[in-house]
């Protein structure tokens, strides 16, 4: 098992009332899985992914990545994981506007390491089909192009699992197809993928489909 959650629970408080954005969630991802998670807006999908990436602290339960419990790691340990084993693509346009496309791709590497990584970054940009845009500022990119940069960025440290939050959320059908194909290529290279997406966009090669509803996760 690559990634597994056991009774993972996260609650928030709103107007004095506690509610569960994730409740006793059990998710399991093998290293060759392509996992899709669907669910209505507000059902807790992003909360779950943030927990998986160690960005949020769970109330209870555990997250095992390669047998290591993320809930027991400190901030630096979690950050190191996000810069290595986990490739994370946040919801929406997540490129940093202050940096060129190429620098955006390099950034996760530079945040934790000292060696140069430009050659690999260029290779990744070529793989997602936008090598010619490396010097551009992210503000000048289209939605699909920006998503490709984010995918390249998430792969710079050779992660074992790629976690993407609605990567096709605001894209037109044609671009959505392109991006999904890109995920399938990543998957084919041996990276496990966990992606939050829409019901109608679930690709045929999906190995597991979970549905989230009011913080409860169920395997379809």
């Amino acid at each position, binding site marked *: 098992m690559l990634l597994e959650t056991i009774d993972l629970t996260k609650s928030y408080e709103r107007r004095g009332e506690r509610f569960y954005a994730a409740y006793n969630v059990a998710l399991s991802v093998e290293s060759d899985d392509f996992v899709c998670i669907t669910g209505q807006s507000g059902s807790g999908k992003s909360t779950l992914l943030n927990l998986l990436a160690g960005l949020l602290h769970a109330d209870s339960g555990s997250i095992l990545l390669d047998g290591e419990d993320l809930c027991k790691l400190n901030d630096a340990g979690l950050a190191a994981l996000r810069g290595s084993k986990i490739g994370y693509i946040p919801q929406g346009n997540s490129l940093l506007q202050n940096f060129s496309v190429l620098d955006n791709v390099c950034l996760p590497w530079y*945040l934790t390491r000292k060696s140069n990584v430009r050659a690999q970054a260029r290779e990744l940009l070529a793989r997602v089909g936008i090598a010619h845009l490396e010097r551009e500022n992210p503000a000048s990119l289209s939605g699909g192009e920006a998503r490709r940069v984010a995918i390249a960025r998430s792969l710079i440290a050779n992660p074992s699992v790629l976690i993407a939050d609605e990567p096709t959320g605001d894209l037109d059908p044609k671009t959505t197809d392109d991006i999904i194909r890109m995920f399938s290529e990543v998957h084919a290279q041996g990276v496990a993928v966990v992606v939050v997406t829409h019901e109608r966009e679930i690709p045929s090669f999906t190995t597991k489909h979970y549905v989230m509803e009011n913080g409860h996760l169920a395997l379809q």
Partner: protein
Amino acid sequence: MSGGRISTLKIAVGNIVHKRFRAVCIVLLIAVSTLLITGGTMLGFGLTGGVKSINARLGADAMVVPRSAGESYEGALLTGSPSTFYLTKGTVERVLQTEGIARSSPQLFISTFDSAHCASLVQIIGFDPKTDFVVTPWLKTASVTEPGYGEIVIGNNVQLVVGNKMTVFLLELEVVGKLDKTGMGFDNSVFVNMDTAKMLLTEYEKFDGATPLPEGATAEDVYSAVLLDVEKGVEISSVQRKINLGFRDDDVSCVASQTILESTAKNLNLVIGVLTVLLAAIWFFAVFVLAIIFTLALNERQREFGILRAIGATRRKLTAIVITEASLLCGAGALAGVGVVCLIVFPYSTLIERTLKTAYLPPQSLVAAAILVLCGVGCAVTGPLASLFSAARIAKNEALANIQEG
């Protein structure tokens, strides 16, 4: 870009360049604060230096001047403002009979300020080398020879050099020496021996028609002031009282140097106090405003920081980025402020002295450099200090994980 530390710097610089307007505002704020704080500190040191200089320069215990001179003797002393007042020799001789006087030396003042026949506007001070015990020591410390007849020694602010000629009442007087800076009126004065002074006063009368001398008196009959030292063991104030009471019906007043010094020092202490409070307030204000700016910026940058965290930045890294940004901006501001101080305060220090109307002796270059460095650093640290608030918030804020768009 490569390496952990370099990425911090690069991210910080990227953020600064991206938010240019905010960056310029912060740099300006700190530059102005630095300018005020450094300039104010320089001013404080200059004023203190001035009073110290008075202390060192008031070589006589007391000074006898005409009572009608009012406070203008103080002006002559501190700012070199024009003073033309005269005592008759007869009066002076009687005053000097007073018990307790150890030594005395007369001086004669001539002002060229209101004459069309002089090349520059200066206060001329004639001293008597035979009896003088005040000016002569200054000449010695400045390694200046005593001026002979028709020769002058100039104060530090007079824009001439040794060997130049100065035209006074159409006479050409040769500059034979220049005194060190005192921060007092002496910097704007010209020193001559008593014979030259009398000759100049005679010339003055020729040109000016209306004589400034007492009725019937000639240049030979007058002095402007007499400097006194009292005998050992005699109180200055008792001699002062004897003269002021004994010559009540004459136009005579005895002023103790200490009085001049004390009133100036008292004013100075007040000014320094106010200045210190003001400068501290400016500093705290800068920190306060910066803290607000950085905190607001932090709110606006939640998503940016959230993304950085999502791709592997530790909270510590984010903190380092915030502090680096603040340090860069405030460092630049402080540097700019110190630069402007150098551009303004040094070239115009003479103007500042004149405007202040009090003793002002700017700090020596080494002290000035120390002030610049310390004030610069003091202002530069406002940035990191103010950013600590936001840094603390980054450290404990879980919402940074909240990287929903918007």
